[in-house]
């Protein structure tokens, strides 16, 4: 399997499209009314221009390429003090726009290739991936711990290693190993069971999607797990009849949809398989009238758009041939795959829930602070940033903040704890699970 993962040098022409105008530093919309907000977690925390949005990252990239910025400890750290949230990317209008997260990650790949990166704590994570196929140093058998209550209740989850099912629930490492985020797979599976879906998991044989490895610049480790996963997907399709892969994790979803598409075999392997996020899947069912809610949740909630189910799913229209503008010109952005409305529609559908918006939302959502390896590499800063987001929710009167990513879930929780906030953090699936009427309940 060939992988088309760009080296920094290959992106040099793109890097030279940036004018250093600094528009990427703030989320601003003319409106009217005009709205303004900080968009770069790194800039907000560290302040200096190098940390600030894509303007600063491009400066670093130029310095690496020209040889003017040799590696040292502080510089390396600066490259990793970025959540790769793509908030900056959303503001830019020039030809390198589509490649901004790519440029940031290519610098990290360069650091890894030069033997200096990633950060020491990332190295532990990568070692864990090599040893355990997950970044949490979790033994294989722990991966299924979350399924115990289902077994106990006499509703075991189908094991795709042994049986066939059309739907594969890709649980993801965070939901499986991070106890604080286990509510996510639990609620997801509970919903699926209530809906009477024929779905299964790979259990101990599931391996990491590779997102974190890719984010911190270890493309070799990413390729290793991604290749294995793609092979597994093919096997699941051919041998187990899987037609749909569902994920409740924004990171896994983004990796499978976007990072895996860098493989030469992607289209072939994924033929006949749809990859879908749980929020999108449930929203489809809701639109078809297949979700029935009972009871009310009298909660004032706000919704936090994870970067990976939001602007990371932008599809950029690029004039590859030079037919419309010129060769390589960025033409437009297609946001149709970004999951902005689906989770909101579901929240609004839950009886009793009042949805309020934070100032920075959808494409201009402020990152929770956990992405891009920051939660592992700089946990304290990640939590501090999450507390800013929690406060933003509190400022609009929200009692609960809902999201669709176990990573955001964990980090936002840390942020709430850090400032002693009363705002509670939930995954969307938890809310749905509370009010969803199951098939059997329906019949009674």
């Amino acid at each position: 399997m060939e992988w088309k993962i760009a080296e920094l040098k290959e992106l040099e022409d793109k890097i030279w499209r940036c004018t250093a105008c600094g528009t990427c530093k703030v989320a601003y919309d003319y409106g009217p009314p005009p709205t303004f907000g900080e968009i770069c977690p790194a800039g907000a925390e560290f302040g200096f221009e190098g940390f600030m949005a894509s303007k600063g990252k491009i400066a670093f990239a130029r310095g690496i390429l020209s040889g003017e910025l040799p590696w040292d400890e502080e510089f390396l750290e600066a490259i990793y003090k970025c959540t790769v949230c793509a908030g900056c990317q959303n503001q830019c209008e020039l030809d390198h726009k589509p490649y901004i997260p790519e440029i940031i990650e290519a610098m990290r790949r360069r650091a890894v290739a030069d033997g200096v990166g990633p950060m020491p704590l990332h190295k532990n994570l990568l070692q864990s991936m090599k040893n355990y196929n997950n970044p949490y140093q979790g033994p294989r058998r722990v991966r299924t711990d979350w399924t115990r209550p289902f077994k106990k209740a006499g509703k075991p989850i189908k094991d795709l290693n042994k049986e066939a099912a059309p739907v594969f629930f890709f649980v993801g490492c965070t939901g499986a190993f991070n106890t604080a985020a286990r509510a996510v797979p639990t609620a997801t599976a509970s919903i699926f069971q209530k809906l009477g879906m024929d779905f299964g998991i790979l259990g101990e044989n599931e391996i990491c999607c590779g997102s974190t490895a890719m984010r911190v610049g270890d493309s070799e480790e990413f390729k290793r797990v991604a290749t294995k996963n793609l092979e597994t997907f093919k096997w699941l399709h051919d041998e187990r009849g899987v037609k749909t892969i569902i994920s409740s994790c924004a990171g896994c979803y983004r990796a499978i949809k976007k990072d895996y598409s860098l493989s030469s075999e992607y289209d072939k392997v994924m033929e006949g398989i749809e990859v879908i996020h749980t929020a999108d899947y449930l929203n489809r069912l809701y639109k078809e009238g297949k979700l029935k809610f009972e009871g009310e949740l009298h909660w004032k909630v706000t919704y936090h758009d994870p970067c990976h189910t939001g602007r990371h799913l932008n599809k950029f229209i690029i004039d590859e041939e030079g037919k419309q503008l010129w060769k390589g010109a960025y033409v437009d952005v297609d946001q149709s795959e970004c999951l902005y409305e689906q989770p909101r529609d579901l929240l609004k559908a839950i009886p009793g829930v009042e949805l309020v918006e934070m100032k920075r939302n959808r494409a201009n959502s402020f990152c929770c602070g956990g992405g891009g390896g920051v939660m592992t590499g700089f946990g304290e800063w990640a939590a501090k940033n999450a507390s800013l987001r929690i406060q933003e929710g509190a400022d609009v009167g929200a009692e609960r903040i809902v999201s669709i990513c176990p990573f955001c879930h964990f980090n936002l929780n840390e942020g709430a704890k850090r400032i002693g906030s009363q705002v509670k953090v939930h995954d969307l699936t938890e809310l749905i699970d509370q009010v969803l009427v199951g098939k059997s309940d329906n019949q009674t």
Partner: protein
Amino acid sequence: MSELSSLQKEHATTITDAGKVDSVLRELRKIVGESNCTASKHIRYAYSYDLSFVKPKLPDYVVMTETVEQVQELLRFANKEKIPIVPYTAGTNIGGLTIPERGGILLDLKKMNNIVAIDPESHVAVIEPGVSHAKLADALYKHKLRFGWPVGPPSASVLACAVSHGIGGLSAKYGLNSQEITSMEVVLPTGELIRVGSCAIRHDAWHSCLPLPQLDGLFKGWLGSSGVVTKIGISVHPIPPLLKVFTVSTENVADMYSYMLNLSNYEMCDDLTAVSWWLTQVPIPYPFKAKPDDSPEWFCFATTTSWTEKEREAKTEIWETVFEEEQKKGTSIKQTVYPEEALRGRTQLPSQVVGSTKNYCKQGGAGISWPGTFTPAKVWGPVYNKWKDILVAHNLSPAVRMTMYRGVHYGMFRAMIPFNKQSAEETENARHAIVECLKVDLDAGGIPYKPPVDFANEINKRADPGYLDLLRRMKKFLDPNDIMNPGKLGI
């Protein structure tokens, strides 16, 4: 971008002497704290270049202050040690003005970003240097107030633009943004905190620089070389509900000038701007592309706002009279549909799209500079024709803008020149063309604004010796050790 100037290299070797760096950094840490100062190369590097053709140069330190007291302490220290200080807010001035000529401390003021007050009754706002156009626009709109937003990045500083004689979208009505400054608080290069304007007489009165002697002039147009401005009061204005933009085209610059002169006499526009065909293109063609024969060469948008329908009708009537008069003169004037995206970019300000340089640089790549001038309107025509020759000869688009200021028949006259900064050759080509254009304009009575050192030298060559002498004496008086943005004034 890859090479530093030889001067800078020399400087870098002296200042990076470990002992010196450590002792300076130790002092800086005492003043602003460890996380607000650095000598790390990668951070300094990110401040070493801007959009323009000006050669990159590294500062030796970068410092972020959070309080006025810190600015004072910093300046006292720098003055004692004779270390250059370059004030910086976002570095988007398009003239290399924050690229340090002689190293030293780059003073990033972005953390001083409080909107100290908005007085919706008196129409005055008080702001710190780090307040961006985006932030102020958001805050003012809540009071249905506005300011003269430039077509620059929303993240850039309102204060830096105003003290640099910046130009916004209300220039036909209220003049330059520096004319909107009503009071100032400044830290002098020697560290004293001073105030000019009404706030000097009563600390919370920020309404006017007049009728006092205009000492505010000591800190406007000095390119950060006379002190660090820590607060300004600015006039802000109510937003009338009705907008009407009159758009015309002409075949040539003379006809456009005739129309603008006529219309500006009525002093009814917020903004009266004409742009050449190349500047209506999104983006400006790079390299030069010939204009289609059937397209007019000049387009004008006259932005008006009104409180009532009747006022709007009256303005429309005046405009129609002007238009008919111009037609009767036999000029090539026509009503036209201004290209929509370009018009939006000029009337919906601040604009993230234009601010991100899309309209200007998207095709050129990374670089933009301008011969940006204040030029008497009556020479716009001849200067434009010469500029066009120079620019086309350099394979660059003559993307020229002419804007009437406050009905006084002079205004902004500038060409936006994108270029491919990846190529040293193309950058030099643009620089050469721009400096040539500038000489033509200076010889016709124009004066460049926010001038890079190349331009400052050209100004000074032509300046009255008495003016230059006074400038030097004032600079020496305010900044005895020449620490503030040294070298930028070319004196």
